[in-house]
């Protein structure tokens, strides 16, 4: 039998229906692959063998009766940020030590209702704060990609580093992820996978550990554009439990793939050509432009003048919201408790021991910018700039632009324990320079692999769409994928 883990979700779905193999065989193939390879990657921080086998057996019963949902029997990995009933859910933080929720997040509940099988929980930056997966309490994740002729460990990006590495190394058919400033798209670009952050409000946030509530949005990381479309259709829903969930029917995203982009207007924003950007990124961008032009799209130069202010504004808004959201971790209702001489001392000791450095840094920034006397200068100013960032996009779309093409990241994957980034937190933040604008404006964005750099590492392009127009993103990403081909790491593990 062929290696079942090599199949995409679409291929596995069709072959499960035709009974070429069983869901149990497919799940066992993944569990075997995880047990053999996870020590090399540290992508999973909890593997749910028994639950996976039970879910697969239930899928087989349904498939035998000719029933089954859109993802029946498809084995998935789940980022540790999603609450999964009775299963490890800690946002990869020490402060949620031992937390096993008594409820299921809406996103994962949707996936299980469609027949998907849970393989386990995936590593991530602590509370989704990071761009390299190195802030995880459970240690870094290793990228399945290595530079040609090198054994050096590279990061898979972050915060959804475990999701991206597991998908790239075929340790799951697809994975859930979340994106607050680039946490789906940057790791997808670093691992040669496809990741989409949907429009704010498309996917319910209920049961997903909150980082920055006005920016957080869940989406899939998958091996190709079609698989990402299949997963997003199941993840998205209208949810009464999330007041920001938008009352709009979920379209059939998969149906958009293969449609022509002829006559479509593709915006190329000049502000995304940043100083110090490697020539290879510029060359990749030009290749993307050429592919879309060859496919009949019209290329239009546009300006998004407030682009450079998105990242600094983000580093006020996101920490401010985080400082509020993370106030709940106080050693009383769940997770870690470190005793103290009184209750305030207990809070302070618990939070000092439970949060890692990056999380503390952001809580401190957030607390400072919201504190008396600084609120107007920082927070209010940032929210006004955010209005301008959104307005830039609105004007581009009002002028007839259908989709905007940019690079996904300013570089390929970098090394684990990079000295420059460790010394200066702002250097790490710059990873999100092309992705963060999309969160600030609440728009959908997809990262699609487009080529390899001179060292043989994957690079991605990003497409940004109108609100709730994920279909156009899948349609356009499909054209890029068709032209670029697909990228898989050479197996060294």
């Amino acid at each position, binding site marked *: 039998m062929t290696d079942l883990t090599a199949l995409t979700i679409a291929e596995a779905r069709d072959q499960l229906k035709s009974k070429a193999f069983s869901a149990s065989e497919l799940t066992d193939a993944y569990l075997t692959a995880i047990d053999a390879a996870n020590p090399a990657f540290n992508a999973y921080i909890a593997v749910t063998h028994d639950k996976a086998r039970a879910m697969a057996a239930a899928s087989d019963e349904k498939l035998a009766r000719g029933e089954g949902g859109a993802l029946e029997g498809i084995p998935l990995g789940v980022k540790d940020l999603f609450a999964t009933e009775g299963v490890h859910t800690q946002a990869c933080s020490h402060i949620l030590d031992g937390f096993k929720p008594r409820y299921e997040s809406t996103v994962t509940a949707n996936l299980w209702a469609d027949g998907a099988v849970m393989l386990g929980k995936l590593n991530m930056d602590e509370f989704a704060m990071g761009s390299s997966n190195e802030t995880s309490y459970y240690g870094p994740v290793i990228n399945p990609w290595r530079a040609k002729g090198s054994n050096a460990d590279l990061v898979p990006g972050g915060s959804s580093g475990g999701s991206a590495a597991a998908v790239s190394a075929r340790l799951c058919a697809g994975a859930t992820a979340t994106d607050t400033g680039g946490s789906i798209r940057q790791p997808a670009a670093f691992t040669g996978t496809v990741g989409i952050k949907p429009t704010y409000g498309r996917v319910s946030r209920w049961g997903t550990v909150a980082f920055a509530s*006005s920016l957080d949005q869940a989406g899939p990381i998958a091996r190709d554009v079609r698989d990402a479309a299949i997963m997003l259709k199941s993840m998205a829903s209208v949810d009464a439990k999330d007041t920001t969930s938008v009352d709009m029917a979920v379209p059939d995203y998969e149906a958009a793939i293969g449609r022509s982009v002829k006559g479509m207007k593709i915006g190329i924003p000049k502000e995304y050509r940043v100083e110090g950007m490697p020539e290879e990124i510029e060359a990749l961008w030009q290749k993307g432009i050429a592919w879309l032009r060859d496919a009949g799209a019209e290329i239009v130069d546009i300006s998004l003048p407030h682009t450079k202010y998105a990242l600094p504004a983000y580093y006020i808004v996101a920490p401010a919201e985080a400082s509020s959201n993370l106030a709940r971790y106080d050693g*009383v209702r769940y997770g870690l408790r470190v005793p103290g001489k009184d209750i305030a001392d207990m809070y*302070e000791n618990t939070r*000092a021991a439970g949060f890692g450095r990056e999380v503390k840094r952001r809580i401190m920034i957030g*607390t400072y910018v919201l504190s008396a006397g600084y609120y107007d200068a920082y927070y*209010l100013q940032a929210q006004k700039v955010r209005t301008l960032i959104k307005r830039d996009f609105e004007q581009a779309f009002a002028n007839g632009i259908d989709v905007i093409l940019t690079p996904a990241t300013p570089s390929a994957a970098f090394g684990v324990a990079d000295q420059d980034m460790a010394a200066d*937190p702002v250097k790490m933040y710059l990873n999100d320079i092309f992705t963060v604008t999309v969160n600030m404006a609440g728009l959908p964005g997809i990262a699609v692999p487009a080529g390899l750099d001179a060292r043989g590492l994957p690079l991605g392009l990003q497409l940004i769409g109108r609100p709730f127009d994920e279909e156009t993103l899948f349609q356009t990403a499909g054209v890029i994928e068709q032209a670029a081909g697909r990228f898989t790491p050479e197996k060294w593990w």
Partner: protein
Amino acid sequence: MSVDIQTVKRVAHLARIAVSEDDAQRMTGELNAILGFVEQLNEVDVSGVEPMTSVTPVAMKKRQDVVTDGSKTADIVANAPATDENFFLVPKVVE
């Protein structure tokens, strides 16, 4: 704007995070690097611009004011570090 070590200690206390002298020293440098980075926002002309309150122009959903959930005390206290029956236990607050 930049912060000094006294401000860092005050903010840490507001955020209920215990910090050692060394932590506070290190955080002062890190926080100033970030505050230096966000400083550039001051060059943006925001006169007449409304601060963003919601990225999607939708009205907040409302529902009937009726009880739809509850009777889950066992679930609610299940993950607490210290409980007694249906109560969270904390160190003595009132003398």
